[in-house]
């Protein structure tokens, strides 16, 4: 690895190497260009940053702790494992970091209505939350399949006053919800702000969402410095679209000693046709406004992703991850549904923390690696979300297993 400036992207065209860009219908082009200008202006405005800092502290509850997972560390018998506790944020996941940033931008731009897509519902809940807080009506597009498996989050969004539109097209999951949100945006160009929940979509979304999430890595650096007086040796985060991962990774990309690992959802296995591992099982293509790795067939048709976690059930990945994969700065591995469930149970029992199924993929990779590493190896896992929303999924999985036994 000779290159050291991995943090300079994207360029003016929104490209991270060959990935990213602005592949949208002409109707949306003036909107995404305007958004990029407004975001640049906001970023440079001290007042905007003060507001952002205020809401991060008093509303989200940041900084959240960097917690030494002592029993999991003992259990693994190797690397010292820390959890960056994003699940302690208001709304229970990292998603709100981005939503607060974007809603402040929406207000600044004078937008009157928010729309968003959601998979597991965590981004939907976070969007509905900030919409309530800032008094904006909000419409959440959610796949019908996901509505079925994430009932608790659907109810939370309703309580917060959001309108939830079930999307039955395609497989009724995150990709289809994103298509429908884009259709709404193209129809309501004057007053609507599209609050994308991950580091994907047309430029400036991948960079903007990353920036709002990068507080995860910045806090981690300071907190580990205070605890251990040095940099981490490795970082691990789960990757669907990849926003919690970019948030943790970005600040460390140019620290060559830090090993960085992104964990894709391997579903039933990357060698089957039921997974959501775009980097390990996909090829580059263009979808939802950006060029990135996609699950697709030989004709360029997007194929269905599969993961036990609705939040990772997406056939693409943020373009910056595609870039970091190609330049080999970040290692992307995959974890199966079963491995994630085992890690889910282990974390519940050993640490008294019920992690989200998405997060459980990162934990599974940590549990796999830690025993092979020395005791002075400092490993940080992004505890991206809490698992309350996954009770139903885990219950039905446990019931199915009991039947088999």
């Amino acid at each position, binding site marked *: 690895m000779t290159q050291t400036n991995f943090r300079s992207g994207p360029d003016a065209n929104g490209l991270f190497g060959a990935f990213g*860009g602005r592949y949208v219908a*002409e*109707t949306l082009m003036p909107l995404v260009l305007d958004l990029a200008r407004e975001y640049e202006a906001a970023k440079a405005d001290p007042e905007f940053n003060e507001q952002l800092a205020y809401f991060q502290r008093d509303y989200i509850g940041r900084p959240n702790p960097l917690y030494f997972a002592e029993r999991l560390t003992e259990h693994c018998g190797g690397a010292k494992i820390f959890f960056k506790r994003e699940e302690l944020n208001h709304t229970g996941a990292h998603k709100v970091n981005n939503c607060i940033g974007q809603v402040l931008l929406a207000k600044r731009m004078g937008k009157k209505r928010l729309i968003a897509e959601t998979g597991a519902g965590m981004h939907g809940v976070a969007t509905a939350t900030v919409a309530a807080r800032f008094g904006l009506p909000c419409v959440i597009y959610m796949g019908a399949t996901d509505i079925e498996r994430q009932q608790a989050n659907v109810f939370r969004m309703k309580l917060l006053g959001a309108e939830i539109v079930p999307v039955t097209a*395609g497989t009724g999951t995150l*990709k289809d919800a994103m298509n429908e949100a884009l*259709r709404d945006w193209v129809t309501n160009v004057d007053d609507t702000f599209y609050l994308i929940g991950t580091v994907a979509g047309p430029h400036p979304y991948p960079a903007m969402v990353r920036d709002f999430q990068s507080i995860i890595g910045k806090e981690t650096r300071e907190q580990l410095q205070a605890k251990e007086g040095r940099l981490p040796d490795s970082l691990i985060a789960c990757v669907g679209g990849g926003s919690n991962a970019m948030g943790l990774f970005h600040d460390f990309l140019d620290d060559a000693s830090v090993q960085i690992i992104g964990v894709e959802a391997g579903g039933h296995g990357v060698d089957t046709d039921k997974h959501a591992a775009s980097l390990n099982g996909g090829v580059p293509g263009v979808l*939802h406004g950006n060029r990135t790795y996609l699950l697709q067939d030989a004709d*360029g048709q*997007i194929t269905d992703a599969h993961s036990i976690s609705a939040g990772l059930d997406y056939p693409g990945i943020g373009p910056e991850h595609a870039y970091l994969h190609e330049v080999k700065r970040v290692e992307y591995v995959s974890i199966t549904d079963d491995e994630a469930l085992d890690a889910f149970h282990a974390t519940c029992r050993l640490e008294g923390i019920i992690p989200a199924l998405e997060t459980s993929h990162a934990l599974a990779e940590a549990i796999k690696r830690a025993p092979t590493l020395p005791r002075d190896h400092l490993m940080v896992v992004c505890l991206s979300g809490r698992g309350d929303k996954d009770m139903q999924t885990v219950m039905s999985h446990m019931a199915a297993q009991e039947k088999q036994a």
Partner: protein
Amino acid sequence: MSRLEQRFADLKREGRAALVTFVTAGDPGYDASLAILKGLPTAGADVIELGMPFTDPMADGVAIQLATLRALEAGQTLAKTLQMVREFRTGNATTPIVLMGYYNPIHRFGVEKFVAEARDAGVDGLIIVDLPPEHDAELATPAQAAGIDFIRLTTPTTDDARLPRVLERSSGFVYYVSVAGVTGAGSATSDQVSGAIERLRRHTDLPISVGFGIRTPEQAAAIARLADGVVVGSALVDKVANASTGEQAVSDVLALCSALAEGVRGARKG
């Protein structure tokens, strides 16, 4: 002179607008779709837009989403769409065919191979919804170098500052999307359309075709008085959706095409 240039020049002499018809390739199946394609010129279509199915048609409304799914379920691929054009060209040398769709299937097929095969098949133009001029180098430039027109969409949100950028490398004709929205949604008023055309005229000499929300011969006639071309898509595609057999799909689509053509031909440009 390209087939598109020739066709619009001829119609200009006749003093009427072009009827531009959109159908999805492979909908409801290859054979019926090919029969529709072959029948369209006789039924009065002046230019044919042939949709290349894609699983995620983000800018399309329900009618074309469903058409896409029907075609994919029937086994349509980009290679088969090109084959369809080849077969069409054996019996028709004059009606321009414009392939319309999204970039990913072409990206996967390989741009170079696609451009060469499309040219050899007799494709005259491309409309790629998710390739704005910012990404011209990817497909627009190689396509035009091979003599295939690259037709741009302009929309109510394309303001005067952006129009020159959008029109700079446009060729064939300019497609004006008359409403901000997905295909098959609401329609614009005649006043809105004539205002928009006036604005476009200040920036381009290319023929201007207007689409989105035009469903009936009367609506087609009204737009034909203002524009150089009238695009009808979802209404034709709905005929396929409502047909119970492939034969019925062919006859219903062609019957609507004839009625639309009558509307367009009856409306002399003022």
